[in-house]
């Protein structure tokens, strides 16, 4: 009988060298021949996905045909820019800094968000910080209901369940961030006749963890078929700096540090990857639980959540619909 680690690593292990060869060939074919563009623009966040996509594009197209964009805004962590620069300097690709805060201010992104927060936290104002959270999947069979965590200037925090209006208002306002970044990527793509690379991994792509016409938009998505764990495998092979590989996945959208787990997935990505794999490969909850050291109940809830998120993601994936 296999040991747990062997089974787990077997499930998501890939031959990094062969996969990189396959992806870089696909990027060349897609960008040069299908899209007929001269290079690629990539928004670099300082995270693992955009780092890997930058490496792959530089390998595929040549470092002189890649433009990376840093697009911080008022709520961004300073780490994002520092780590983003680390990637592009190691690749010796062109990069540009576009501070998108003035555009977001002009669109009243922050003002709209704060007004929505005040629907449930009336005292919210200058100096406050916030993030949106979901209960973890370990919190029993509760519905995944969003709450907001706010921190006052004197460090007091409180958590409040969101009303539908507040939740939708906050999300609609913060979605400006992803959409403005994509607008900026296409601006530079237009200038250079480049294509825009998308950076979602399979977990994000499948489960709808993206903003429609924001980070969900791109001309090509070279890692959308890879589980997050596999992206890390490629990152190690490609020599992505260790600090980036060790950085916990973050949304970098709210003023309080927010993990992707608490905002969307409700499980660590390693477990989400395994559950997504198990569900898509017909592995029963009990078999996967046994193999991966999770409880059967947890895997069953994860399978159910995956299906629920897929239903929500259908709309996000839809293109404009026209009459036949």
């Amino acid at each position, binding site marked *: 009988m296999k040991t747990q680690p062997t089974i787990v690593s077997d499930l998501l292990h890939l031959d990094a060298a062969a996969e990189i060869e396959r992806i870089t060939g696909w990027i060349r074919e897609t960008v040069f021949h299908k899209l007929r563009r001269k290079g690629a623009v990539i928004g670099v966040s300082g995270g693992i996905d955009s780092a890997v996509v930058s490496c792959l594009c530089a390998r595929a197209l040549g470092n002189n045909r890649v433009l990376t964009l840093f697009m911080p805004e008022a709520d961004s962590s300073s780490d994002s820019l520092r780590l983003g620069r680390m990637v592009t300097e190691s690749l010796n690709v062109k990069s540009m800094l576009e501070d998108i805060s003035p555009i977001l201010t002009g669109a009243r992104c922050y003002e709209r968000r704060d007004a929505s927060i005040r629907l449930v936290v009336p005292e919210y104002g200058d100096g406050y910080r916030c993030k949106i959270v979901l*209960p973890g999947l370990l919190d*029993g*069979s*509760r*519905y*995944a*209901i*969003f*709450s907001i965590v706010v921190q006052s200037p004197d460090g007091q925090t409180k958590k*409040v*369940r*969101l*009303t*539908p209006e507040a*939740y*939708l208002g906050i999300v609609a306002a913060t979605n400006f961030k992803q959409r403005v970044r994509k607008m900026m990527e296409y601006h530079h793509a237009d200038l250079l006749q480049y294509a825009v690379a998308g950076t979602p991994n399979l977990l994000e792509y499948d489960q709808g963890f993206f903003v429609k016409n924001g980070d969900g938009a791109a001309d090509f998505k070279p890692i959308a078929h890879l589980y997050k764990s596999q992206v890390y495998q490629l990152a190690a092979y490609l020599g992505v700096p260790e600090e980036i590989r060790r950085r916990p996945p973050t949304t970098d959208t709210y003023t309080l540090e927010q993990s992707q787990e608490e905002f969307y997935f409700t499980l660590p990505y390693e477990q989400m990857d395994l559950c997504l794999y198990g569900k898509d490969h017909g592995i029963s909850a009990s078999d996967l639980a046994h193999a991966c050291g999770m409880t059967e109940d947890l895997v069953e809830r994860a399978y*159910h959540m995956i299906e*629920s998120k897929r*239903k*929500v993601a259908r709309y996000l994936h839809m293109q404009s619909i026209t009459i036949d």
Partner: protein
Amino acid sequence: MLQAIRRFVIDNYLFGEDAKFGNEDSFMETGIIDSTGILELVRFVESTYRIKVTDEEFIPDNLDSVTKLVSFIHAKQSTSVQTDRETPVQFAESSLQ
């Protein structure tokens, strides 16, 4: 109550088309209500029936069909009446989230 909740669900999530929707049908399994929809449904229930739903009560056993919701509201109202008689101020504060 059952008809009012059924009407709310049909109007808001089935766009007025109620051909095959049963009062026992699971909102989750049929996929007609997502997590934002549950927030809307609970807000409707709280404002219409003057109850407060705690985070811990956001579970399918309470909210996942019209009939479950009706039973849950009846139970809450009956608890509320009892608690209200005993410690009305305490109940009002503790139910806020």
